[in-house]
């Protein structure tokens, strides 16, 4: 009974209180809302700790069982433990932490992003090899217009043909892209609202076992 009803009751109550605190700024609703949001932050922070512990457990288990990927797991475990200790010792803005941030993590993620750019370019080049339809033509046309139209030119004035391309690129961002994004935003908002109402009315009980 407690596994089914209690989590649902807590979730519905917390949601209603936060919602009331947002729409009805009457004491003590805003304070209750702020307290509940703080608890959410604590829970979120503790989730990071749980994730860190779970990561260690998985890779330690893999090290214990052996097999493929054992060396990778060893490096992951060692890195996690060393960084954890060093950041605890020096803090987030410590020298070790900043060195790892600027010398390892940032270049790595930037390289991955650059690799993504090259891969996307190759895929665009080979698009007609695997698919020929109106969507492919439209896709390539939009990519070309956006690439050329967003180039910060200094040697070519924003007039004539180039001005037209820049104008088309700007129109694409202001009208079609804006319409699509707003449509998506509305859809997402309605979905969130519906999900919230279902949780509030107990129709969906993600916090219980059933």
């Amino acid at each position, binding site marked *: 009974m407690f596994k089914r009803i209690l989590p649902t009751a807590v979730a519905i109550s917390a949601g209603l209180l936060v919602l009331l605190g947002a729409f009805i*700024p009457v004491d003590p609703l805003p304070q209750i809302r702020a307290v509940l*949001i703080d608890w959410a932050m604590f829970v979120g922070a503790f989730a990071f700790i749980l994730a860190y512990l779970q990561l260690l457990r998985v890779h330690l288990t893999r090290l214990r069982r052996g097999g493929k990927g054992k060396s990778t797991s060893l490096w992951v475990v060692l890195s996690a433990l060393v960084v954890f200790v060093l950041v605890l010792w020096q803090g987030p803005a410590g020298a070790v932490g900043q060195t790892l*941030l600027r010398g390892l993590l940032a270049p790595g993620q930037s390289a991955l992003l650059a690799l993504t750019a090259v891969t996307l*370019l190759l895929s665009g080049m080979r698009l007609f090899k695997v698919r020929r339809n109106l969507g492919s033509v439209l896709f390539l046309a939009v990519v070309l217009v956006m690439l050329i139209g967003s180039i910060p030119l200094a040697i070519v004035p924003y007039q004539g043909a180039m001005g037209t391309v820049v104008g088309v690129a700007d129109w694409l961002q202001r009208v079609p892209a804006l319409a699509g994004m707003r449509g998506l935003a509305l859809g997402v908002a309605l979905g969130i609202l519906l999900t919230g109402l279902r949780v509030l009315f107990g129709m969906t009980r993600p916090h219980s076992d059933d």
Partner: protein
Amino acid sequence: MIRCPKCNTLNRDSSRFCSECGAPLYRTRIRCPQCGTLNPVGNIFCDQCHTRLVPAEETPATPAAKLTEETGPRVQGISLPTRPAPAGESGETGAQQPMPDWLMGFLGPETPEPGETSGAVPDGLAERAEETATPPEEPVTPVELPDWLTSLAEESAPAAVPSRPELEPAAELPDWLTGLAEESAPAAVPSRPEPEPAAELPDWLTGLAEESAPAAAAPAPEPEPAAELPDWLAGLVEEAASPSPAAPPIAAEEGIPDWLSGIMEEVSAAEPILEPEPQEPEASLEPAALPDWLAGVLEPEETPAQRPGAPAISAAPAPDWLSAWEEDIEEEHPIGGREDLSAEDTWPEQQAPASESARMGAGEMAAEVPDWLRALGPRSGAVAVEALPEGLEQAELPMWLEQLRPPGTAPLDSSRAPEAPPGEEAPVEGLTRAEIPDWLQPYRPTATSPATGTSALEMAVSAPESEGPLSGLAGLLPALPGVDAPAHFAPTMAVPLPQTVVQEAQLWQQLLEGGAGAQGRPKPRARVTWPAVVVRVMVALVLVLASLLRFSETPLAQPPEQPNVSALYATIEALQPGAEVWIAFDYTLADVDEMDFIVEALLEHLLSREARIVAVSTLPEGPGLIADRFAWALGRPDVSPDSLVSRGFVAGGTAGVAQILTSATADAGPHLLVVLTSRPEKLKAWVEQTAVINGARLAEGKPALPLVAGVSAAAAPQLRPYLNASAQAGWLSGFSGVAAYLQARGLPPREDISRRLDALLVTQWLAASLLAAGALFYLLAGKQKTG
């Protein structure tokens, strides 16, 4: 149709259970070895890929057991085929050999009713005889007609015959028929003409032509007395001479068939071709003109050996099937028991040694002639049938010849044939077997002597029919599979199964065939060819070199003025000294190189306005980013550490944003909120939660919290709707925005920013060029074939 495996009942295709015994009817299919398609049983080729399903060499012999087992129970009687049997089925039993025409004549489109009998004639035969009374609808094709009948159909050949041909046995006509013709010819021709060979017209037909010719040219001579000439033949002669004024019109009344009447009328209308000759009564009965059996009829006391003038036909052996018929008569009905013969008892049998028939005397054979066969005799001479020789009255055209009868002519009326009492019939002598011409030989029923082995077909033939219109008759060909079953007969239903069912069955079969090895099979990795690798490397090198090399000392890129950047500059410029500005560092490390320039541009301006900076982040890496940028800011002159406050990381995602804004606006609140992000969802969260806070602040009478943003160039297209709607205070994106912001502030362009803008310009042009070139190349090269 589906044959029940239990009771062999034929059920409908859609039946699931036998309608007779209720047994379930299973469906079986033949899987194509090539494509795996399930084909109905009976298919020789696959419906999908046309692969042969049955081996071509699979033509087993025809054992008797296999005949009875595979063709099911022997179908009693003959049911009419609806479709020809497939070759695959018939090839196994060998029973579907082409049926001879003489037997096909009995397989008329209608099955005779058992109750309808015509005297002693079997039901089927009597019905057939009645059917032949009506002219056939379809003319006989010239291909099926022998030459002599072709000339008969043309009906003009007699006119071209100058004289009566020699009465020799025709090469293509059985002797007994030849004799029949000769028998009728002298009835009208008193003397034999000069022998002139007729290549295409048989003698007896030539005789008919000769008889009709004088009728049109001159008065016909007196016919032969009835005692010497059969009356029905005399009637033929008279009918042929009917156009003559001297001849009495007796054709219609005398029972001459219409088709013969038509022939005679047309012949009589032709040119006279023969001079009338005086008739010689004895000429019609001379041995050279009559076959032995007819001669024996006319002269019972004379044996064929005693007739020196008889042609070779008298000594020629009778066909086997006729001998078998005689043997059958002898066995089942002894001599003198002719009155016991009936249609159910006798029928030509295929197997009969010639020696046995040879032992049968002529008189015995005549006595064994069944009534029904006698009834088929002189139909055309019904008026004078009493005067006909007994053997001659049996001379009826066989059924196969009836079918070859020209259209528009009436057959002989068998119903008018009188039936003489069996006991009064004189024994017929000289009823020898006639020669079967060569062209009829292929249609003769096959017979194999027991010494050479008996096939299953022959064994089946030897059994008499037990029921049906042909009951009691032996020697019939067995019911063929194609007779009682459709051509594409399949023991299973050919009901099209749903595609899902077929796919499920195929999946099960694949699993069964593949076993456990079929599961968990590693998917082969896509092979990367060296040209693809080279292209990738080349593209990457082009982009890297374009971003590193500096092509000109003069900046290539010059961003245009941007209203949102100008608004941002105005917002920051309007801040009072000491104003609290909250900055959210919510960008990832991958965008550090780009976002650092944005942070520096904004932070420098804010610090120049003596704002108090409070940094916060909802990302775990945020505190490090904040510390790094604060370290850069602290390196600038006139920046005190007290103006830079870091709140670090706030967990909770959107809840963390709400908590930050709630705590920030608890007191007087910040004067400006700056969101630095490269992730769209982060900016959305900040925009939405700021709207909530602003609603509360506006309700309390406080001013709304302005929001400005600095986003990466990649996230700008997605965030533009939010920025245009909620960040009216301004925003900037990418290197272009930084350059524009610096330009708005009136600062000279920074070299590092200009260099990055130039690299961006070149790489974007190269990327567009490569994209267009690749698209054009593959557009011309063709589409890749999948699979």
